[in-house]
């Protein structure tokens, strides 16, 4: 070993010790701090997947904007879909602080090299699905995301604070919408129940595979990117939803769902993980459609990006 590499190695060890100490002390890691390459790669993978989920998530809901039952619901839904775009942008910015450019991330999404949450590969068949997504899908997302506000990486944590504040509106509007349907005509009630029946299990899958099968969980917990295990968050979500469903006057489609006095939690039935892995692999009902639509939106927007750039160039803006 030459003197130079020995010196470098010594410096790296000092950096690593400083990083470990910062994480242990619950300090935040900031973009220009030294960090292990695996930490950086894990964050890029997770933040990118999260950003992609936000912008792909615009599709199933946007599907109902033109058919919203009232102007009020339409305005709400447009605001919500716009928020999802905003959340995507906060997260892409956070990923960029790690040295991965916007175009590279979008390209990986468009070519299937990075994933998005498999929940968005399910179709929105009726208006009630918009309510069920707000209540269950956004509810599950909030359960996942609130602990991320304390994530060890500063820019990600700050993006999550902003996102969580906004998600609360998403969940409440969904709940209110479902409640209106549930208390409406028998047909409307049935439509709400059908939506909940279809979205309940995929929502539970949003927390990811069981702890003993989750590839990245242990390391992410050690790095304090993740604060709670998948199963722990899933249980928390189930416990929150059961009384909320009672108020809605709707049932959750799980015959095994019952209070367990001893555990102080609701027991619930087995999750069909085969379905989860199939959807993740690309075999869900809408995988193809979502990615095709995303690529098309990107390609059809090219002229707007080019025009804006040409305008900036012509007016001599320092494009740095």
């Amino acid at each position, binding site marked *: 070993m030459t003197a130079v590499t020995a010196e470098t190695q010594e410096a790296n060890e000092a950096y690593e010790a400083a990083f470990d100490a910062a994480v242990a002390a619950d300090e935040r890691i900031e973009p220009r*701090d030294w960090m292990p390459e695996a930490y950086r790669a894990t964050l890029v993978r997770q933040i990118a997947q999260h950003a992609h989920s936000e912008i792909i998530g615009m599709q199933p809901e946007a599907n109902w904007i033109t058919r919203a039952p009232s102007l009020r619901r339409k305005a709400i839904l447009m605001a919500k879909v716009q928020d999802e775009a*905003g959340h995507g942008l906060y997260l892409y*910015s956070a990923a960029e602080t790690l040295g991965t450019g916007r*175009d590279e991330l979008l390209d990986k999404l468009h070519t299937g090299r990075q994933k998005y949450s498999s929940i968005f590969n399910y179709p929105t068949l009726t208006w009630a699905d918009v309510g069920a997504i707000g209540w269950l899908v956004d509810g599950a997302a909030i359960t996942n995301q609130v602990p991320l506000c304390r994530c060890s990486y500063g820019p990600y944590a700050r993006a999550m604070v902003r996102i969580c504040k*906004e998600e609360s509106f998403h969940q409440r509007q969904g709940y209110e919408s479902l409640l209106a349907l549930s208390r409406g005509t028998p047909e409307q009630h049935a439509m709400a129940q059908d939506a909940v029946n279809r979205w309940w299990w995929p929502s539970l899958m949003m927390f990811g595979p069981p702890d003993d099968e989750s590839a990245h969980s242990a390391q992410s917990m050690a790095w304090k990117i993740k604060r709670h295990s998948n199963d722990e968050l899933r249980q928390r979500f189930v416990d929150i939803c059961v009384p909320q469903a009672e108020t809605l006057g709707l049932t959750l489609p799980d015959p095994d769902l019952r209070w367990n006095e001893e555990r102080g939690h609701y027991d619930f039935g087995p999750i069909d993980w085969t379905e989860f892995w199939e959807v993740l692999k690309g075999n869900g009902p809408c995988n193809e459609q979502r990615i095709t639509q995303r690529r098309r939106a990107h390609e059809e927007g090219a002229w707007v990006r*080019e025009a804006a750039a040409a305008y*900036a160039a012509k007016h001599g803006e320092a494009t740095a």
Partner: protein
Amino acid sequence: MTSSDWPLWEVFVRSRRGLSHTHAGSLHAPDAQMALRNARDLYTRRNEGVSIWVVPSVAVTASSPDERDPFFESAADKPYRHPTFYEIPEGVQHL
């Protein structure tokens, strides 16, 4: 030209009059006017601001995190700059 050629801007938002602008985040835009408009849509959808600054990220000069300790060290050994450093007899008022 693609969006990766669009420069990065840092966004600062004044939440209400009387407070200073604080850093809200960053975004890409082809020019300053578009950066302002994008910043409005991205960071003030809920009346979070009454004024926005956008600054090209490359214009920011930052202290190095590696030098954090030596760079700020000179303040560390001067506790006498804080009012709590001084012992004042009990009962003395308005001090």
